[in-house]
């Protein structure tokens, strides 16, 4: 059934991505590919992987943006993007076959590859570009939130998080129930002012992004330029002044 669940899911599993921490190392994208090419939507086909024009299915991609500001100067923000598992997922309602669906128990949006006809309409309906067509299999694929990992009883408890979360070397990604206001992820979103991407598209995404913190200016030991000025002044010792004089010559 491609209608959204009659009872909106109370549990809303999703990701919180901290743009202040992300260093753009692409490890989450690589581990996503690694896990999912053997998982629920396997394989994540690559065409011409070692040739001149390699292309393939990836569920997670890391963009880097430059934010220009005449007053505060520019900054670079690394921006991982995968399926946002929206409450009002248009990719689900446009599906003509019922292959695209949202789970009532946890809100995860999945594709039933046995029913997908590969019409690609869901990829047109998603404003975020979360869907990935597999030319080889002729079906649409997408982030499963590692549904085959997060509920896997064969894995130790601490490993039952999406591959992108477990691999992030800097802890920029958190996973949890965003439907529960008391959960760690919900508290984090509230504390840091987490936001939705493109709220004007009315998809009500579950995944949230945490904004970069304001740039530090002046305080805490001064700016980088200030820290690089010579340390020696008249109050320095004889040796230090002599070295300073020698080096300044």
């Amino acid at each position: 059934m491609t209608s959204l669940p009659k009872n909106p899911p109370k549990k809303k599993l999703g990701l919180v991505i901290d743009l202040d921490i992300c260093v753009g190392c692409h490890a989450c994208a690589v581990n996503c590919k690694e896990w999912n090419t053997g998982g629920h939507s396997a394989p994540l086909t690559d065409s011409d992987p070692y040739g001149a024009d390699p292309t393939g299915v990836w569920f997670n991609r890391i963009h880097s943006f430059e934010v220009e500001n005449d007053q505060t100067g520019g900054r670079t923000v690394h921006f991982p993007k995968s399926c946002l598992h929206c409450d009002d997922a248009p990719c689900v309602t446009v599906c003509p076959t019922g292959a695209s669906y949202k789970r009532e128990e946890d809100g995860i949006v999945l594709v039933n590859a046995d029913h997908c006809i590969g019409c690609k309409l869901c990829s047109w309906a998603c404003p975020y570009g979360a869907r990935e067509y597999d030319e080889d299999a002729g079906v649409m694929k997408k982030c499963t939130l590692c549904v085959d990992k997060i509920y896997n009883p064969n894995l130790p408890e601490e490993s039952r998080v999406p591959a992108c979360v477990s691999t992030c070397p800097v802890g920029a990604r958190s996973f949890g129930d965003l439907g529960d206001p008391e959960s760690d992820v919900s508290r984090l979103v509230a504390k840091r002012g987490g936001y939705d991407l493109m709220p004007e598209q009315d998809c009500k995404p579950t995944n949230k992004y945490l904004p970069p913190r304001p740039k530090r200016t002046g305080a805490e030991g001064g700016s980088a330029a200030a820290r690089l000025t010579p340390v020696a002044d008249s109050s320095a010792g004889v040796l230090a002044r002599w070295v300073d004089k020698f080096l300044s010559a």
Partner: protein
Amino acid sequence: MHPAKSVIFFTTASGAGYGLLFLLIAGDLLGLAPGGFWPAFTGYAVSYALITGGLLSSTFHLGHPERAWRALTQWRSSWLSREGVMAVLTFLPTGLYALHQLFFPERMPGITGVIGVIGAICCIVTVYCTAMIYASLKPVHAWSNRFVPAGYLLLSLMTGALVLNALFALFGPPSPVFLILALLSLIAALVWKISYWRFLDGTKSLSTPESATGLGEFGRVKLFEAPHTEANYLMKEMGFQIARKHAMKLRRITLTLAFVLPLLLTLLALFVGGSLAAAALILALLNAAIGIVTERWLFFAEARHTVGLYYGAAHA
């Protein structure tokens, strides 16, 4: 958006087919169509060929055409599914009416008229569903507006009328009623297309690189580095771009071939008779066929998707 040949052929051919089918039934119900077996038979045959050809072509771009029947199941939520269901349903009343008209014209019971009306309405609803597949896609600003359903319906009527006039001209003098109908639909469609382009040139999606990333409060957002060096599925499917100078040239080709020339040729046919009129109407159809394919190609090629905002587009 990537202009897929199969989808361009589907929307133009089946649009003309449903327009023709609608006019054949409405014409017969109102007693406006020329009598005789062969004009009606040829008309119905051509309309079903256009519709079926278009529908089959639309399955060519599917990854799994053998599962296409599944697309009839989700009519509660999906316009694509509704389109499929309506396309199948429309065959029934229109087919029944056509068979009655062709083979038992003197024994048409009252119920046949009702079936005809239902068939004609089904044609309109099917074309509306096709248009809504596009008009319901919010991320594509060029499609998600009230111009799109109106345009699909108008162009369907217009191309249907042009096919009808060219076909009937093969069998006898053209019917002034259908010539005038074609002229009116050509003028309406021309006005619509110009208004649509004016709308398109003066509007932008609400979504911006700033809203797509949520970084607007820090400044102007520009793509610094793409996620990978080569193009991916999203960029090929949604990121199709056409140079503006080509778009302008193609718009002029569309205006000339799809609307202006067929308008002049149909007008000519209204005043001259005989084989000259027939030649003008066939020429009008051929021009319009190329023009309408160009129009549909532009409909896709000029449409921008919000996903482009993540790949360096300044607006969507």
